[in-house]
Structure formats: C-alpha cells, structure tokens
C-alpha cells in the first residue's frame, strides 16, 4: 500500500494540483472542456469510442454466442485464432492496420488490381476505427462466450419449440440474458478506446483524439498544465464509465489488458 500511495495516489494528486498551477489556474479544467480545439478532440474521441463499442458488441456478440452454442471440428483452433490478438499492444495493432490499409497495404493493392484507385485509409478515422475494433473484438468475444455458456440453452429451445422466430429469441432471451456481460464488455471497450494511446500513436498523424492531444500538448507545446488537466479529465471519464457499468451490473468488470 505504501508503494501504491507513493507512486500513484501522490503523483495523481500532484497532477491535479499541477494543472491548476499553470497560467490559468483552476480555469485550466474549464478550458479543456470548453476551448474549441480541446472540445473537438474530446467529442471526436467520445464518438469514435462509442462507434467502436457498438461495432465490437455486435461482431463479438454474434461470434461469441455462436461459438458457445455449437460444437464442431476446428472450434478450438478458431477460438485460439480469435484470442491471439489479446496480447498485442496498441502500437502493434496500429502497424497491422497499416499493413491492411496503408500506402503499401493489402486493401490498396487489391483495389488497384481490381482496376480502381489505391484505397488508403489507415491514417484517417476509418483506420483508427479498424484498429480499435481489432483491439477490442477478442476481449468482448471472451466475455460474451463466458456469459453465454452460463445461459441455459433450454430457454432458447423452449422458445423455438413454441414457434418464436429467431429475432424474437434474440430480443427476448439472448440480449436480456447477456445484458450484464454486454454492459461490462461495452464499458471496458469504451474505456480502452478512449485511452488507447498506442494505436493512435501509430495512426493518428493527422487527427486529434484525446490521448494524442495530450501527448502533443506535452511534447510539442510543453503546456504541461493543459496536458495534466486533459489527462485528469480523461482518467475521470474512463474510471466513471467503468464504475457506472459495475454498479449497473453488480458484477466485477474484468480489467483491461
């Protein structure tokens, strides 16, 4: 606990005070959420993270339910492949997106050989979206699979035998049953996307998402007070999302890796 106090609580407290020590005093916090430049990057980050969360929940949810409901040869291998990226840090994910959609990427080469122009979107919002999606799918998948295993398949069987169409089963049984897992995984996905520095570092050369904005403020403009205020706002935001999800589901939200 001493270690934790000395190297996390104290530095964090100092960070909060430091932000207020700058040119603008406590108003630095106000600036961070009102000044157009910072506000824009905040909004862009929130929107991007929300979009990634929605897309991840749909893809990870569908695949997760499928993998937990069916047994077939090669299933274990497939799960192994799907969870392999768990250990990749954000920087590596960023590079993988460059290999897919960068200037020398696969998508560009394919689109060119099909007679079109070279499609390159690795360094735009699309690239970031793809990267965050890549990062989040394995995590959501595992959570959904674990929850779906515990959900009684007899419920679905009963509904099906009573003539419920697949959509009804999805809406009335699967989604409510998986709700805690979906909320937990969604919150985690949102929080990691908000703070994803590694992927943004390799891809966001032209767009300003929050972690990049903090980094630029820190290194380029050396405006430490603003950087401190922004990272505190970011930290509070991600923590609040996770805490909210936890109190909503009552279960522990597994931590991000």
């Amino acid at each position, binding site marked *: 606990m001493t270690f934790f106090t000395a190297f996390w609580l104290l530095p964090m407290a*100092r960070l909060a005070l430091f932000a207020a020590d700058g040119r603008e005093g406590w108003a630095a916090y106000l600036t961070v959420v009102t000044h157009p430049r910072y506000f824009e990057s905040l909004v862009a980050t929130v929107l991007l993270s929300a979009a990634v969360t929605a897309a991840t929940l749909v893809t990870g949810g569908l695949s997760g339910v499928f993998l937990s409901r069916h047994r077939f040869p090669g299933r274990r291998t497939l799960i192994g492949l799907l969870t392999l990226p768990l250990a990749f840090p954000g920087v590596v994910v960023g590079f993988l997106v460059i290999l897919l959609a960068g200037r020398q990427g696969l998508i560009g080469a394919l689109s060119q050989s099909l007679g079109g122009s070279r499609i390159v979107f690795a360094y735009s919002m699309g690239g970031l979206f793809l990267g965050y999606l890549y990062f989040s799918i394995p995590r959501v998948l595992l959570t959904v699979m674990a929850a779906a295993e515990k959900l009684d398949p007899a419920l679905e069987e009963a509904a099906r035998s009573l003539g419920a169409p697949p959509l009804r089963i999805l809406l009335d049984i699967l989604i409510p049953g998986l709700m805690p897992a979906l909320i937990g995984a969604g919150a985690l996905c949102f929080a990691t996307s908000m703070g994803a520095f590694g992927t943004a570092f390799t891809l966001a050369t032209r767009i300003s998402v929050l972690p990049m904005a903090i980094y630029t403020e820190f290194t380029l403009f050396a405006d430490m007070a603003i950087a401190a205020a922004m990272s505190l706002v970011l930290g509070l935001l991600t923590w609040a999302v996770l805490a909210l999800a936890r109190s909503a589901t009552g279960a522990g939200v597994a931590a991000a890796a």
Partner: protein
Amino acid sequence: MTRSVFRFWLPLGFTLLVSAFLILPVLLSVLAGVTLNWQRGPAGGLTFRWVAEVWGLYADTVLRTLLLAGATAIADLLLGLPLAYVLARHPSRKARLMEELIMLPVAVPGLATALALIILYGGWQSLRGGSVFILIGHVLFTLPFMVRSVLAVLAALDIRTLEEGAASLGAGPWRRLLTVVLPNARPGILAGALMVVTLSVGEFNMTWMLHTPLTKTLPVGLADAYASMRLEIASAYTVVFLLMIVPLLVLMQKAAAAASGGR
C-alpha cells in the same frame, strides 16, 4: 441433427470472417518481414536479412524487456502476495476498498499515470533516467492482476479454515505459510506471474512516456521502427515481438485455466 443455414452456416461464415480480419494482418507482417522488397511482393524473393538487421539494431531492447518483465513479476510477488493474503484472511469493507484502489491504475489510462509520475518525480534525475522508473509504472499497472489472481484461488479454497486446521495441529505461522498457504496458492501465483510478464512485455502507453533513449523497451522500439524504418524492418521486428509474446499468451491461458479449476 441437421444444421440450419440461419443458425449454423451463416454465423459460422461470419465468425470465420472475423477471425480472418484478426489473423490476416499478422500473416501479412510475417510475410513482409521475410520479403526482400515488399513493393515487388514475396515473389521477388525471400530473405532473413531484415530479421538479422533488426537483431543488430534492437537486440538490447529485447533483453531489457525480458529483464524488466522478470523484475516486474518479482516485485509484484513481493508486494502482491502479502496483500492478497491479508485481503483473503480479513475480508471486510476496508479490504474491498483497498482492492478497488489498487485497480485504479488499470482503469485510468496509462498516459495519465505516466504524466503524473513524471511531474512528481521527473526532476529526480537518477530515478528518471533509469529503468527503475519504467519498472515502477509496470508494477502499478500489473499489480492488480497478480493480487486478483492469487486472491481468487485463496478465496475459493477457504484458506482460513485450512490454516485454522493446521494451527490446531500445532503448526506455527512460518510452517503454515510454507506448507499450507503457498502450495495452495501456487496455481494462482503461476497464472498471475505469467499474466504480469505478458502485460509487461507488451506495455507501451506508459513506457513510451517513461523511457529515455537509453532505456528503450521492445514496444517502444517497435513504435520507433514504425515511424522511421522501412516496412520490411518494421515487420521483421514485429515478428520478433510475436515470437516472444505468443508463447507467453498460450502459457498464460493454460495457467489461468488450471487456476480456475481445470475448466
């Protein structure tokens, strides 16, 4: 049982598509790492030249990363085992709060933690310039995983009753620790240590802010290579990283399954 199109084949196709999205770029990077010239494609010839070049340029980052991961695991054991033990023996509101508190560095982005460390301790040159600074960051970030892993095993065992049994038979505190607590916590310790090492090897968000040109780790070197090296070298370096991290991941998942009761 026949498999319906809607319930089996369509979702299977979708899942295969998702796994292709996840695996294809990895294969691309392996291929690019051994291709003579990526512009001309793999047909233009294969080579280990880039891998060798990466080794020459970045071998020190590989070594430092491994040492750092080992040191992180040891520090986590020294700090985390006593904490997990106390939390398991005395479950209370205060214990829950403490568990929540040490989770904070995971919930808050590493960038913010790193900035806070730099602002408070950055002026202290001998600390700022060394690998110990990075070690502190890694321990903050990984400690909760170690504590949770050990705590889960200890809680499932009802370590309290076991210890009371040993004590009633006349075993002293040291004897109980060495013959009852530690052997029983072993699966949790192993799973936790492997997880910590995997996390430490891949940690970038904090390390990028805390490193100095003399204390580069592998992921930091990767970012460096992505920004300034040709695609083939960046790919070859990524392959070196994958060769380290993937076996760790597999071991970690095996250990975690064993710790949670062989499921």
